[in-house]
């Protein structure tokens, strides 16, 4: 049985091939097009997945679509009908775009005429979280902006079954609230939420928390949000109106404007409100499932600070490597537990790499070194203060670079964060970087109950020796690396530890400002040459700019 999983037309389009229950290949469209969060039909990702699986499109038995277009259409039509005059032009625009977004028509034009199975948006999130988790039974909490109608669900997973217990519908949406305040703070929604999270520890949450909480009406299992300050139901331009300003008495910020203490306070308050509401959902999930394990899914599961709250109620917490819509392409295909790795994207052989390097030979010196010597050399470079781009094996699926498309540096240098933020990535200075630590020694440095292989939990550190990977509030978004998960990256961090005593490396995605994560060796070399990264490692090739 060969299944093609697809997510498209919302955020983060992606595709995957699942053969006899095993995920063979998966990739996000943005990596091929270079457009961040590309939401168009993932033609390039599908083509690559099919070629990687060594099949043709007519070999596919079933296509699994990550949501129900019919239910989504019902939600949008019902919403527009509430304000028919105000949404007249928007409705026309929507109907026009809908015509070109029929999965059946698009797939037929690609040569696929077989069965298409549509799943509920939040089921796809829940399935990806639960079926890829290590549990035989667990509570499942999914939170995002909106799917068809649902914005939040609580389910229980037992064996290979998922049963939905509670759902909260649009327009009551924690994800939409977070995105609205993200936009209010001058960051791009569906992208800038990370920045708001990073900004929050600099602010005082007491300033706006009560004001934001006054919008909520909580019943025993659900939350409702007062819609009067928001335009989610009738505008495609901005997400708020003057009532939000009247509530906050703070002007919205344009992206180019300076970030003031008020903005930091609003970010802190939003994060606190999100955590309060998320905690209530966790308590409900615990009470109705009685489970000791929880799987968290949906775009909001990238909120690592909130995820860590789950330990108050559950013994074990799992967040998959791509909890947002991209992962739903895989989730839609799954109906049983799977062993899965996040390294599901394109990889390049030494021959392919060498061919690309040769195109740049006038600009770079290249050394091919055996693995042990390379690891030793790279560890010395990182411990010596160099910034190294690390390109290995198959590309990661999901928003995080987990050691195959990473920029690495020493977390012990207090100036490294500033250097990486301002010089290399050219982004806001307040944004933190994640530490990757070996699984054998994470408890020595971090207050963690269990491992965090996908950088999904934000925890406090015991150590004062990793200033560049520690946020202002003493927290870190940690990746624990095991030999089984990524042996070469594990070996590198172990060697860094042998040389310096600290088996931790600062790990950020291999991309420059406004770029998607690096896909090919050619992109890697071009980006290396246009930046101030000191060394580039592709497979076992060490590459250095000619002086």
């Amino acid at each position, binding site marked *: 049985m060969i299944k093609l999983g697809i997510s498209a037309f919302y955020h983060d389009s992606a595709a995957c091939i699942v053969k006899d229950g095993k995920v063979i290949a998966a990739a996000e469209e943005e990596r091929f097009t270079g457009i961040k969060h590309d939401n168009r039909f993932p033609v390039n990702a599908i083509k690559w997945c099919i070629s990687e699986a060594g099949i043709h499109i007519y070999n596919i038995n079933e296509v699994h679509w990550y949501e129900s277009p019919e239910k989504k259409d019902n939600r949008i039509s019902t919403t527009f009908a509430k304000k028919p005059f105000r949404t007249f032009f928007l409705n026309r625009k929507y109907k026009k775009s809908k015509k070109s977004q029929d999965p059946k028509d698009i797939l037929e034009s690609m040569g696929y005429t077989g069965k298409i199975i549509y799943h509920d948006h939040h089921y796809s999130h829940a399935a990806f979280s639960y079926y890829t988790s290590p549990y035989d039974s667990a509570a499942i909490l999914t939170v995002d902006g909106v799917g068809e109608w649902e914005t939040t669900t609580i389910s229980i997973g037992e064996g290979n079954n998922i049963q939905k217990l509670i759902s909260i519908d649009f327009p009551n949406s924690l994800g939409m609230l977070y995105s*609205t305040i993200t936009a209010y703070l001058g960051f791009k929604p569906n992208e800038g939420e990370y920045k708001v999270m990073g900004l929050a520890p600099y602010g005082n949450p007491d300033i706006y928390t009560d004001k934001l909480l006054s919008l909520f009406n909580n019943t025993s299992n659900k939350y409702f949000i007062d819609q009067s300050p928001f335009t989610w139901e009738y505008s495609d331009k901005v997400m708020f109106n*003057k009532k939000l300003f009247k509530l906050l008495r703070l002007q919205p910020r344009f992206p180019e404007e300076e970030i003031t203490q008020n903005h930091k306070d609003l970010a802190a308050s939003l994060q606190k409100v999100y955590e309060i509401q998320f905690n209530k959902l966790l308590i409900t999930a615990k009470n109705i499932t009685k489970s000791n394990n929880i799987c968290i899914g949906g775009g909001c599961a990238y909120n690592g600070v909130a995820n860590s709250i789950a330990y108050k109620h559950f013994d074990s917490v799992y967040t998959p490597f791509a909890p947002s819509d991209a992962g739903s392409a895989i989730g839609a295909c799954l109906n049983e537990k799977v062993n899965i790795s996040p390294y599901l994207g394109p990889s390049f052989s030494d021959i392919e790499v060498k061919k690309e390097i040769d195109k740049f030979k006038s600009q770079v010196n290249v050394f091919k070194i055996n693995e042990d010597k390379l690891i030793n050399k790279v560890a010395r470079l990182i411990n010596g203060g160099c910034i190294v781009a690390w390109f290995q094996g198959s590309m990661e699926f999901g928003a995080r670079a987990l050691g195959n498309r990473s920029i690495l540096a020493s977390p012990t240098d207090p100036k490294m964060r500033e250097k990486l933020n301002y010089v290399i990535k050219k982004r806001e200075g307040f944004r933190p970087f994640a530490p990757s630590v070996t699984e054998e020694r994470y408890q020595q440095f971090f207050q963690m109950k269990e491992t965090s292989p996908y950088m999904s939990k934000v925890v406090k550190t015991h150590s004062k020796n990793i200033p560049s990977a520690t946020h202002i509030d003493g927290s870190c978004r940690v990746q624990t690396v095991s030999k089984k998960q990524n042996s070469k990256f594990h070996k590198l961090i172990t060697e860094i530890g042998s040389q310096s005593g600290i088996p931790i490396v600062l790990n950020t995605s291999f991309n420059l400002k406004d770029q998607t994560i690096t896909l090919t060796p050619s992109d890697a070399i071009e980006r290396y040459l246009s930046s101030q990264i000191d060394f580039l490692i592709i497979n076992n090739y060490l590459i250095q700019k000619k002086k």
Partner: protein
Amino acid sequence: MILLNWIKRKIKKFKEDRAFKKKLEELRKRDPFRYKNF
């Protein structure tokens, strides 16, 4: 004195409201800056 303070507060509020209105208009003119839910 109380009346003067009241007038000052009203003027301040009026100016803030006007500034917000201008910002909102500017935001509407820019590329859609919102979470896609349609």
